[in-house]
């Protein structure tokens, strides 16, 4: 019964979001007030229905209702409760349901936090979001219904993929989707602005906190995913340029460009068309990414053949979203007034350069990701594009971005004197050169890449510190100032971590017997033994390793216990790596396979500064949080609230 209620709620949500998508938009266009006011209640009702639907699926998982096909495929009666909850979005259908649920959560947030915004604008924004919701709900209901029954019911479920039985899975997809879907709000604001023809500073100011919020979630989601791959998958890396990873990284790159472009549009009124295009692009890539990953198109072009409806639906939806927004753009953009002009060397031109480079970086990732698909579709053979391609393209494109990033906050709007910037940047420049020359030597060898990486990160960090110190002399700066510098510091920390790991990590696959020792990265690893340990739904072989820093006393001894698990419900073993994390390094042991006697194949890693990679991402996200919390956005609310009580009351009167 519960699954049917969930299904019904989903169908009702579709009807409501169609109303939400059509009437308010037309109402705004033709000045029909009674249609405009429908926007907010429709969004809220649609949210409640989807919440109910989501809860119904979660309940089916909780009570182990294996008559629901999706539950039977992704859960098992032995699965711990936490993972049963995580399993709700462990497969294609459930994760799409999570996607629309997040979308409707964002819509409801817009409906509550837009009290001061012009009513017709709100109606258009919520309307566009409603149309997107409706498109996705149609997709779910026609091709990926999670509530399909299995008759007769399965006795037990197939269990959740052991890879996904990890706390990381419980948080990673919702974070990532919050980010993906959040760009829908920026997209809706852009489309609403195009519809109204009012692409002005107010539009940019309203769009900014929403875009930043989405960007924060996406940053955290990607970082969590990377961290999860690092400690759970046991591959020992933090980024693999896997198509699935690229799918989340592309919207991030465009989203980052959008954040900065919106800043220029708000402050100077320039880049309007560019900003709109970025907003459309970021959301389209989010959509493309979700579907490519979730439909299995990326890992296998043949997924089109297994369920052609899914693939075709995806294409239609993508073409509709991208096509209609670009047509709208082409139609409306010529009417957009040009913003303030600027000189060849100015803050605007520097921001534009950074923006273009981010888009180029994104395009190169897109090319590398889709190239194998295109070649295969053209029947030219099957190929794969390896990580070296991405590194070879990405590093040179991003280097000038990182170089500019430190200096842009010093540049003046409209027109700036390059000598003035140079005068202020000589200290960071000298520090960067010094650090770039010396630190790699201290770490064990200078290469162009490590020198460049260290120099860039010191360049960004030191110029940030100097700028903050100078600014503090003239009183407390606003939150957004702190946000910008925290975000940029995050980039510096991230670049430093990436450089160190890339340049100085050590990895060894060795055969070890109890009593054997191996030295990797200045740490001695001694294998004590491997014993069998039972788990709730698996049995494990657990190794014991003693790690000591070479040259340090016995006080530095650490125990590491990696596991090799065999889950009862599957024949597939799982490697659980053991990691001793530290501020300047991680040491990492994972069990390969048992060899003859008591010997095991063991993988041992030394990863200098690897945690700085995720630390940097956290700092970026924190920077975003500061920017969102800037008083500027809240002050507007207060002052506007005192002006508009009359409209508010009339609206309340009309609301059913």
């Amino acid at each position, binding site marked *: 019964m519960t699954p049917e209620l969930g299904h019904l709620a989903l169908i009702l949500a579709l009807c409501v979001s169609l109303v939400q998508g059509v009437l308010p938009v037309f109402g705004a266009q033709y000045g029909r007030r009674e249609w405009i006011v429908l926007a907010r209640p429709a969004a809220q009702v649609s949210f409640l229905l989807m919440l109910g639907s989501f809860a119904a699926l979660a309940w089916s998982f909780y009570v182990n209702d294996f008559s629901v096909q999706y539950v039977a495929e992704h859960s098992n009666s032995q699965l711990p409760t936490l993972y049963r909850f995580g399993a709700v979005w462990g497969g294609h259908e459930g994760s799409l349901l999570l996607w629309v649920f997040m979308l409707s959560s964002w819509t409801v947030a817009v409906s509550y936090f837009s009290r001061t915004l012009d009513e017709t604008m709100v109606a258009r924004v919520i309307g566009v979001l409603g149309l997107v919701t409706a498109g996705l709900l149609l997709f779910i209901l026609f091709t990926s219904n999670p509530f399909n029954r299995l008759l007769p019911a399965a006795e037990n479920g197939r269990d959740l993929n052991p890879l996904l039985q990890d706390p990381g899975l419980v948080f990673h997809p919702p974070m990532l989707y919050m980010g993906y879907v959040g760009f829908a709000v920026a997209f809706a604001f852009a489309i609403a602005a195009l519809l109204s023809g009012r692409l002005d500073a107010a539009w940019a100011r309203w769009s900014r906190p929403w875009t930043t919020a989405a960007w924060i979630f996406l940053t955290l989601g990607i970082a969590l995913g990377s961290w999860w791959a690092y400690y759970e998958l046991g591959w020992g890396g933090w980024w693999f340029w896997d198509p699935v990873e690229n799918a989340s990284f592309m919207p991030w790159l465009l989203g980052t460009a959008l954040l900065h472009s919106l800043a220029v549009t708000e402050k100077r009124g320039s880049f309007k068309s560019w900003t709109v295009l970025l907003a459309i692009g970021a959301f389209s890539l989010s959509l493309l990414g979700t579907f490519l990953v979730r439909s299995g198109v990326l890992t*296998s072009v043949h997924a089109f053949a297994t369920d052609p409806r899914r693939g075709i639906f995806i294409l239609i939806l993508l073409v509709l979203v991208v096509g209609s927004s670009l047509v709208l753009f082409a139609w409306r953009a010529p009417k957009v007034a040009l913003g303030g002009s600027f000189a060849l060397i100015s803050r605007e031109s520097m921001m534009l350069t950074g923006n*273009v480079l981010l888009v180029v970086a994104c395009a*190169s990732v897109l090319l590398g990701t889709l190239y194998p698909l295109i070649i295969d579709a053209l029947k030219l053979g099957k190929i794969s594009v*390896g990580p070296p*391609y991405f590194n*070879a393209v990405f590093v040179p*494109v991003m280097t000038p971005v990182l170089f500019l990033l430190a200096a842009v906050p010093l540049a003046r709007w409209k027109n700036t004197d390059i000598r003035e910037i140079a005068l202020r940047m000589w200290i960071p420049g000298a520090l960067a050169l010094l650090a770039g020359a010396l630190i790699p030597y201290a770490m064990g060898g200078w290469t162009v890449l490590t020198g460049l990486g260290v120099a860039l990160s010191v360049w960004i960090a030191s110029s940030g510190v100097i700028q903050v110190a100078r600014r503090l002399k003239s009183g407390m700066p606003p939150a957004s100032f702190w946000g910008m510098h925290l975000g940029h510091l995050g980039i510096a920390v991230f670049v430093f971590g990436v450089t160190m790991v890339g340049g100085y990590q050590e990895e060894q*696959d060795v*055969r070890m017997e109890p009593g054997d020792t191996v030295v990797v990265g200045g740490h001695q690893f001694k294998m004590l033994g491997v014993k069998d340990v039972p788990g709730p739904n698996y049995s494990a072989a657990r190794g014991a390793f003693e790690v000591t820093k070479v040259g340090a006393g016995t006080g530095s001894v650490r125990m590491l216990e990696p596991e090799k698990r065999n889950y009862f419900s599957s024949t*597939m073993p799982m490697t659980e790596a053991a990691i001793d994390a530290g501020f300047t390094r991680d040491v990492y042991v994972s069990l390969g396979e048992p060899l003859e006697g008591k010997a095991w194949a063991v993988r041992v890693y030394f990863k200098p500064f690897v945690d700085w990679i995720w630390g940097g991402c956290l700092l970026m996200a924190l920077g975003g949080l500061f920017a969102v919390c800037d008083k500027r956005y809240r002050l507007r609310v207060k002052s506007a609230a005192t002006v508009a009580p009359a409209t508010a009351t009339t609206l309340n009167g009309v609301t059913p």
Partner: protein
Amino acid sequence: MKRWKKRAAIIGGGLVAVGIAAALVLNALNSNIALYVTPSEVFAGKAPKNQSFRIGGLVKEGSLRRDNLTVHFVITDMVQDIPVAYTGILPDLFKEGKGAVVQVKPGSGEYVATEVLAKHDENYMPPEAKDALDKAQKSKGENKS
């Protein structure tokens, strides 16, 4: 005049940037593409001679042999067998009788794998492995008739 110059500079700069990026991209793409070939194609000498490539197929039952950290096995499409050696730890899902994709250096005889891929769940067959099996089946049928 000044405005014209500025625009020209912006457009010129943009073109130069796009050009450099395109050159980088094409160069990188060219040297980092790995072609997928089936065991039958390798046997027929159709594998690239001076570039790494990938072979997809099944790990032949009973072919897995360990020599300390080096593993020897055979990748097959049920028509032709290609021997492969790999030194290091295999992914969890690597198993006899299951699909796998290996990236190997060009050569002959026993190929040396630089990467062994079997990342997906147990019921999943890498599309390249499946493709190799299908092709081999098809040509086998054609030869008989």
